[in-house]
């Protein structure tokens, strides 16, 4: 009897895996590549495999991990700035969570993990809130979330090992971080509604960089960006409302 139930459970999990895995392939290529690049840069700073696994396993947020590369060795007085940065960079996750409350309602003990693993890419795979017919919901959501998480960790492990074992001339590789953010901004720019925010971000932080210098400009930039977004109305939005 018990083995029969197990068999039933396994086959449902297997079916969900068969449907869910192909959907995660685009995320796999992206996460392996970015995780690899991240850990390569991390290992160049002298942090080994255990650090890259810790960061990718526990933080599990791409943009923030890249930004944090230069904060790790910056001393305890930077912790507060880092927390504020983490909050603002990842505030968009509040939005993802809010929209997934209903689909994740009946996830039981898996819910905390599913919420923790809700990155931009995982969200893009589950946000429709629809599970293919005849597929177990819990297994489906769990498989997608856990596979994405594994890709990120695996990419980071490989990058860390490559950084450690390959003695290539990697001068300038740190530019991949700049490249990542330039790519994200370019993608944001496609949506006209985002252009106002992008410009506020670039202009405000550039002015703060000139005024406060490169060691102290982050906090004033973040405060001014927050204020500007709350006070100044996005002209694009006004147009759409009219």
């Amino acid at each position, binding site marked *: 009897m018990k083995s029969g139930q197990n068999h039933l459970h396994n086959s449902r999990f297997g079916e969900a895996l068969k449907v869910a895995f192909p959907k995660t392939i685009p995320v796999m290529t992206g996460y392996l590549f970015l995780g690899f690049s991240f850990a390569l840069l991390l290992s160049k700073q002298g942090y080994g495999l255990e650090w890259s696994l810790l960061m990718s396993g526990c933080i599990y947020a791409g943009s923030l991990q890249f930004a944090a590369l230069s904060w790790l*060795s910056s001393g305890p007085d930077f912790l507060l700035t880092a927390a504020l940065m983490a909050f603002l*960079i990842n505030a968009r996750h*509040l939005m993802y*969570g*809010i929209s997934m409350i209903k689909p994740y309602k009946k996830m039981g003990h898996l819910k905390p993990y599913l919420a923790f693993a809700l990155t931009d890419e995982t969200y893009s795979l589950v946000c429709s809130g629809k599970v293919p017919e005849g597929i177990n919901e819990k297994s489906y959501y769990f498989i997608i979330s856990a596979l994405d998480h594994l890709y990120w960790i695996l990419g980071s492990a490989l990058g860390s090992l490559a950084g450690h074992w390959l003695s290539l001339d990697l001068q*300038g590789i740190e530019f991949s971080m700049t*490249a990542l953010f330039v790519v994200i901004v370019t993608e944001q720019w496609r949506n006209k509604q985002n252009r106002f925010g992008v410009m506020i971000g670039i202009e*405000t932080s550039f002015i703060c960089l000139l005024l406060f210098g490169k060691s102290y400009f982050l906090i004033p930039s973040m405060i001014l960006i927050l204020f500007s*977004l709350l006070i100044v109305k996005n002209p694009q939005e006004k147009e759409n409302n009219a």
Partner: protein
Amino acid sequence: MNNTPFSMIMVLSLTTAALRLIPFILFKDTESAPKWIQQLGGKLAPALMGMLVVYCLKGTAILSRPFAIPEITSIALIVFLQWKKGNMLLSISTGTLCYMAFLHIL
């Protein structure tokens, strides 16, 4: 021993995890969550990404050799490739290689 890197990772992990878990703890359904929280979350992302580009380039010397030519050229290449092809892997690797090539030549 300096344990700041570990504290830093914990601070970042807890802040991120809190943001991801809070909606499920605080709100019963999507409709009961305040609109402004959702809107602010969406507005902050583009602005913060713009800020991070500036952050990455904060050490670039504009007024001395090589006058930020490697940065400007590589960024132009990345934007062009991403805009035309939309392939993140291609844009990042080509742009980074372009920058690395500049460092070798100059």
